[in-house]
Structure formats: C-alpha cells, structure tokens
C-alpha cells in the first residue's frame, strides 16, 4: 500500500463520513459543519489530483464563503422565526433505497467499462494551464460568469431585501 493509496482511503473515508454526517445529523448547524468538512475533504482529493489551485479555490470559496453564507442564513432565519430550525428527514427508507440503487447502477456501470489507470502527464503546471485556458479559450464564458455573478448578487440582495 503506497502512500497515495493510503491517502486516498483516508480522504475517501473522511469525505464519505462527513457527507453522511451532512445528510444524517439532526442538527442543521452540525450539518453545515459536516459540509465544511466534506468540502475540505474534496479539496484534499483535488490536491491528490494535482489541482492545487482548485483545492485552494475550493477551500476559499466553498468551505470559506459558502459555509459562511449558509451559517449566516441560518442565523438570520432563526432570528426571524424565533425558534431553532427543525432538521428532520422524511422517507428515509425509500430515499435510501433509491439512492442505493442509483449508486449500485453507477458502480456497476463503472465496473464494466475500461478506464485509464495511469495519469497522462500535464503539459505544465495545472494552475498555469487553467489560467491560460480561462484567459484565452474560455474568455467568453468567463466574462459571462462575471455577469452571472453580478446578476445573482443583485438578485439575491433584491430577494432578501427587508420587508417594506
């Protein structure tokens, strides 16, 4: 068992465990914390895949930004309602069944196709490649993304504006 394999298993266990924590815990706040952990785990996976830049973005934007926003939203809404938010589950068995079936079929499909086992070396540093691609080939989507973010920012502040 190489270090890579061991790291992968550790990360996998961390990711799957925290993901289960997100969907199973009864406390919404804990859920969010588990999500933060899962996102960090994902960042680890990115690292294992030589995508340091993405791992950084993942932690900064996701684990940092998104989780903060969610926590903030929870706090605000609990203040609005005045009670703790209930965080129960419904139709756990059916949902679990469907999810398990889904997983089974996915894994079954994956097992039947031939996938590469070794990595093709990247042309250069992935971060550099990403930067070049974004600024050249993907410049239009990138700019549109900026617009989208702006719009969603405005929309979010419009929707969540205080009541008149």
């Amino acid at each position, binding site marked *: 068992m190489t270090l890579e394999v061991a790291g992968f298993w550790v990360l996998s266990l961390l990711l799957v465990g925290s993901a289960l924590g997100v969907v199973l815990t009864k406390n919404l706040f804990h859920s969010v914390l588990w999500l933060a952990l899962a996102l960090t785990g994902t960042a680890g996976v990115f690292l294992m895949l030589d995508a340091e830049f993405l791992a950084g973005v993942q932690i900064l934007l996701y684990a940092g930004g998104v989780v903060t926003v969610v926590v903030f939203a929870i706090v605000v809404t609990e203040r609005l309602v005045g009670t703790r938010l209930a965080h129960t589950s419904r139709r756990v068995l059916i949902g679990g069944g469907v*999810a398990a*079936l*889904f997983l089974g*079929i996915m894994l*079954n499909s994956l097992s039947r196709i031939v996938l590469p086992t070794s990595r093709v070396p990247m042309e250069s540093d992935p971060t550099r490649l990403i930067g070049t691609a974004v600024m050249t080939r993907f410049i239009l989507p990138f700019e549109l993304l900026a617009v989208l973010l702006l719009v969603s920012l405005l929309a979010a502040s419009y929707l969540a504006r205080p009541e008149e």
Partner: protein
Amino acid sequence: MDSPLDPLVLAVVLAPVSAFMLLALVAPLRRSGRPAAVVSILGAATAFVSAVLVWRGLDAPLQRVWTWLPDANGALASVGFLADEQSSVMLLLVTLVSLLVQIYSLGYLSDEPAPGIGRYYAYQSLFAFSMLGLVVAPNLVQLFVCWELVGLCSYLLIGFWYRKPSAARAAVKAFWTTKAGDVGLLIGIVLLWRHTGTFDFAELRQLVDGGLVGIDGLALITFCIYLGAAGKSAQFPLHVWLPDAMEGPTPVSALIHAATMVTAGVYLLVRMAFLFALTPDVLLLVAWVGAGTALMAAMLACAQNDIKRVLAYSTVSQLGYMMTAIGAGFASAGFFHLLTHGVFKALLFLGAGAVIHAVGTNDITRMGGLARRMPQTMVVFLVGTLSLAGLPLFGGFLSKEEVLAAVWDGGMTGPFVFLLVAAFLTAFYMFRVVFLAFFGPETSRESEHGGGHAPHDAPWSMSLPLWALALASMAIGVYFTFHHPETAFEAPGWLAPLATGVASGGVVLAWLTFQRKMISAEALAQATGPLRTAAARGFWVDEAFVAVYRGMLMALARIVGWIDRYIVDGVLNVVSAWTVSGGDGLRGIQTGKVQDYVLALAAGVVAVMWWLRGAM
C-alpha cells in the same frame, strides 16, 4: 315595351310598392300620420286608375317576365306580369276595395296616434302591392312569393293593436294556420316543377293542352296546391284563423279577410283550374270540403253575437261556395262569386265598422234601434245583406245562383243540398244581425266610445266608400239580373225561384224570430239543441288544433329538448366527467413537494439506466 298597356300594368303593381318604400324608409313621413295616409292613398288611387285603364284596354293576354332566380340554363324563376281577363278584373276589384278601404280608414283610425297611422298605411301599401303581385303573377314562384307576403301583411295588420293580447295571439294564429297550408302549396310547387319542369302558367297550360303532363302523381300535386288554397281561403279545418283575425281593425277585415286575401286561394284554383281538371278526385274533395265548409260556417255564424265574427263566418261560408263551384269543375262560377262577394262583403265589413266605430262594441245584443241613429249606414248595410242573402236585383243574386247551377250541373247533389241549406242559413243569420242591430228597441248603453255621445252616421271619409260599394253592389246586381252572362253550364229553370225562395225563407224566419218575437230565440236554440252548443264552440276545431299543438307538437319538442340536453349532451358530459375524475385521481401524485419530484426523477434515472444496462 311591346304593348302600350305594359307600363300601366306595371304602374298598378309598382304604385303601392313605391308608397310602401317611401313610408318604410322615410321614418319622419311615416310618423307624421295623415301625410303618410295621403301618400298611401295616392298610391292606391294610381293603381286603381291604371287598373281601370288596363281592364278597359285589354284585348289579349299580356305577359312580360324578367329573370329573378338565374341558373345555368338562364332563368329558373322569373318575375313579371300576366294580364288576362281574370287577372285584369281581379286587379280592378283589389285596387277598388283597397282604395276605398284606405280612404275609409282615415276616418276609422282618426283616434289612432300619428305613428300608428303611418305604420298602418305602410302595411296597407305593402299589402296592396303583394296582392296585386299575386294577381298578376305569371308563374307559381311569384305567386307564392306574393302569397306569403299577403300572409305577412295579414299577420301584421291583425296584430296592428299588438298590445292587446288577443290581437297578438290572433295574428300568430292566422300566420301559423295559413303557413300550414302554405307548406302544402310549396311542396305542390316543388313537385309540379319536377313533374313538368316549369313554373309558368302559360307554359303549364300549353303542356296540359298538349297532353304532355303525366297523370301519375298529379293528384298529389294538385292536392298539395289545394292545401295551400284551403289555408288561405279558410276551408275546413284550416278556417279557424279567420274568425280570430277579426281582432284587427275593421277596414283590414274588409280588405284582407273578406275581399282580397282570403280569395287568393280561390283565385289560385281558378288559375290552376286547367290542371285540376286532370285530377277529378281532388276536385271532388274540393267540392265536398267547400260545401261542408259553407254549411258549417253558416251554422257557426248563427251562433255568434259578435258582428264581425258573424261576418267572418259568413266569409268562410261564401268561400266554401266558391270552392264548391270550382270543385264542380266550373271555376268561372266560383270566380264570378269571388268578384261580387268581394264587393258586398267589403261593404258589409265597412258598414259593420261604421257601427262599431259609433257604438264602441262588437256585440249585436248590445246594439239595437240604430236605424234611426244611423240611417245611411242602415241603408248600405241592408244593401250588403240583401246581396249576401242572394236576393234578386242585388249583387250576390246571380253569382250565387250560378254557383248553385254549376254544382247542380256538375252532378254533385250532396254539396248542392249543403249549399242550399247554407243559403237559407245565410239569409237567416244576416237578417238576425240586421234586426238585432238596426231595428228593435234601442238598448240603453253607456258608450265606451267618444265619451257618451249618441251614435251617429260616419264622417264623409267613411260614408263615401260605403256608398261607393253599395252602388257598385247594386249596379252589379241590377246589371246581371237582366243580363245573364254566357256560361258553360246549364242552369235549370227552377233554380232561380228556389234559391230566392230559400233565401226569403231565411229572411222571414229571422223577421219572425228577432223582429216580431213570434218565435222565441231561446226556443229556436233549444230546438237545434246540441248542434247549437257545438256551433257556439266552433265544433271544437280550435280545441283540436290546440290539442295537437300542445299535446303533440310541444310535447314532442319538450321530449326532443330533453333528449338533446340530457342524452346527446349528457353522454358527452359523462365522458368529460370521467376524464375530469380520472385527472382528479391522478393529480394526487403531484404532491407539490420538491423532494418527491427529485425522488421521482432519481427513480426515473434508475429505471432508465436499468433498462439500458445491457448497452453500457
């Protein structure tokens, strides 16, 4: 124009219609009342003068047609005129009565508000046009068109006082009843067209003369045409509308329901006599129905107290005379009676109108002693009555005798007896009216009309037409009493004395009963017993029609309406309701919860992937 008479014939027809268009389209003129009347009367006068000129000048039949309904071969139907002996003299009668009635109406309707008068004269002009168009019609299509139009005018004029429920009802009844006959006429025309390929009288006549008309199926055609005539000319059992039609203003009754429109049926049969001659069975039917109608209506007339209804039944009765003559195969006799009857019956109606106008009631038992109050009216009414009774020197004498002679000569003993009895009854019921209304004690009455002043003779506008008609009636009577026209049939020598005797008998019986009171009217009524009861109820013909209408037609309509709503539409709605219920059942799966939709989505993906598993 081929003949100098062409524009004159056209003028006869077009003068009234111009007046009508003027009145119909120029609303201010129509609402102005008297000026509208003047326009209409001018139209009628023009028509009358032209008719006289046509009648004097006509030496050979004159026909002009213009295409009305085109088809691939040129003209399917045309309009135009056919002026011959019959139509020209009929034109004369129609325009004369029409003109006199319109003048008379000036006085009669003097209390009517101005718009009402305008409306009345518009209808009158339209009627004159339609009737004249009918008279000159060279083919069956134009005849039918005008036939329906006179029916329309009759409907409008009967319903002239439409605020009166009885008038509105009578108008519709008249229209429906005649329309029922018209259905027959229309079918007859359609069948005849298929049978012979033409609507034209002249062509039909040529075909008949040439023996080119097949006899097979012809009886059905003539029967259908007769149905139309029976409806219009109030033959049993379609006579029920005529007495009710007396709801209209009296001048209208004089014009439409005595002199002109009701005789259109007779006129039609006269026009088509050559065709009817091919179907003796139908002629026999015409004669029997005619005679039966004459007798029945005469009996009904005896049981009426309403002066106008007496006259109405007497019209029905006289129409029966004419029909019987036609049925006997001698249309000319019927036509002759039509002409004289037109004159003296119009006179009687107008006289009755003068009485009603003065007294304010139609009920003869509430009149009495009017001879002193209205001597002029009495005289002209008496002239009319004597004419109707068929006494020598008076208008109806010769024509009635001719009808009787024709029927006798036609070998129809049964109808002949019927007619003879009817003649007796005619004299009786007419003199009953005369004695009750004009002679005898003056009944005390509060006049509902004119606020209590005593009845008096009518103003000039009303008396002028009365005298004109009375003189015409006398002139006809005197002229024909001494100049027997040539006829196609032989009158047996005993006939004239017999007819005169029968009529005089009726007069004497009436005199004894109602003037001398030697025979009690009640006793007479008792003696006739159930017959009189039946007569008072009009032999339940009305009731039978009402029963058919209510009990069968309306019931059928209700059933069909129910079926339509609850079966035809019901089945449709049941199917729809099932669809709606199915949707209702299915909509439960739409929980509105986003998790369930995701669940269904995932399950769907699983299912699709499972289905495609072999491919992957």
